[in-house]
């Protein structure tokens, strides 16, 4: 079962999580050339903060700033955990 948070609208991003054998981050972004690495860093740090290592994460980004990416991922993580319980 996968969960998602956010939206594919300007300045926002849509993040989807689903259980997986290992950690995988797939980044689609209108600013991937300029900020792809930064987006990946924020995602991986946030996941590490929750000790999440077995998940497939897909982000569809339309220019979200770091705080938005982090917030959307936090929401998705909580929704995933709520689903597990």
């Amino acid at each position: 079962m996968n969960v998602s948070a956010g939206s594919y609208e300007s300045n926002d991003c849509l993040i989807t999580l689903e259980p997986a054998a290992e950690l995988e981050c797939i980044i689609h972004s209108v600013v991937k050339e300029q900020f792809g690495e930064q987006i990946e860093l924020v995602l991986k740090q946030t996941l590490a903060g929750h000790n999440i290592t077995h998940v497939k994460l897909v982000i569809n980004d339309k220019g979200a700033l770091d705080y938005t990416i982090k917030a959307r991922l936090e929401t998705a993580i909580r929704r995933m955990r709520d689903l597990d319980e």
Partner: protein
Amino acid sequence: MTKKPIIFSYKQLPEEIDIHDFKNISFHHHLRNGDTVLNNVLQIYENEHVKKLNLFPSAIFPAYTKILDLLKNNQINGITTNYMNGPVADYLSHQPLPGKITMQTHGGRARRILNNQTTLDIAYIASPYVDPYGNAIGYKGKSVFGSMGYAIADAQKAKIVVLITDKLIDTKLEDPEIDGSYVDYILQVDSIGDTQGIVSGTTQITTNPIGVKIAKQTTSLIKELGLLKNGFSFQSGAGGISLRVTENLKEEMVHLGITASFFSGGITQYHVDMLEAGLVDKLYDVQCFDLAAINSLRKNTNHMPISASVYANPEDPNQVIKDLDIVILGATEIDYDFNVNVTTDSHGKIIGGSGGHSDTASESKVSIIVSPLIRSRIPLIKERVTTITTLGKHIDCLVTERGIAINPKRQDLIDKLSKTNLPLKTIKQLQEEAFKYTKQPKKLKKYDTMIGDIQDRTNKIIDHLYKK
């Protein structure tokens, strides 16, 4: 005056004209995205397998897809234009031409045609209202588009001039925009396009709060610079923020009881309303952006169609914009030296071009760039723009939602503003403010396969286009 030969269909074209021999062909873009003439004419070139064409459309819009077919058939050698957007621009960003892309300005294009630096073999001129002598106007007919400004130089200088029309009248036209003495053929067709297509999404006044804020700051800036006085002249273009500035100025003018001498360039409903309200004496119209502008051009003698040369050719003694006080312009990027890019996006993809940008910035007493500081995480301000459309020496002010930067070369303006409440910042300070939100973007690798030139209006090559 003799009658002109009339051609009755596109199919007859190759019988009348040796289209294989005359490679340099031009079009105008007045019907913008509603134009069907360019596609229909080029269909003939495709059918006849004409090779090594050099296209000189004054601009290329998304609907001009026949160019794409010719590109794929390898029929095109070079393209010279002032603006391009859509699938053709996308394609050209990735696929080099055998020749090259040359990006010009509206004034520069007219200048080069008129002083014979550009040789046009055939000018195909979509014309809404034509008499049997080849005289034409743009503001009457079935498929009206208003001013024919961008086609005038082509008509005067091309070796062969073909008017394409869907309204051929019997009587002689007085005061035509295109003088029939230059015209060789009239091609009569069912339709030259759809008038509705001239209205694009950008010609609407913005209600976006960030745009509204920028417009407000710009209006304050114009006031504080002392430019808002009786008889001033102004050009706003048709961008949403620029139109909002126009609206704000209107309120100020009514409040102050002053009037403007002229507005120039692309004309919209907003400019027409001010003409009709007596707030401006004359509209010098090189291009109509909506139906209200066309209607006004038809009935109001103070709303005058002008050619691209009279508009912006630096060698034209009647050049209108040399008397321009204020111009409001957009930017996709601006750099530390105030160079502006409206030609490519930050990834190097072609998305536009100068049009009148660098012409008006060069001539206007004060040029003002209006733009959001950040668009989808991409900061407006860079150390160096991806492509220079207009040199920084012609750009005086930048207005964003987070402050105003004045080009240090304009110390006179900085002095005037020093005692005001305006949020003045250096361009680097503004960039730092943007980075607080976006973080610093990674520098993209510079592409190295040159595919075209950016010419300014004085014929100088000021930058190049590179294959993405």
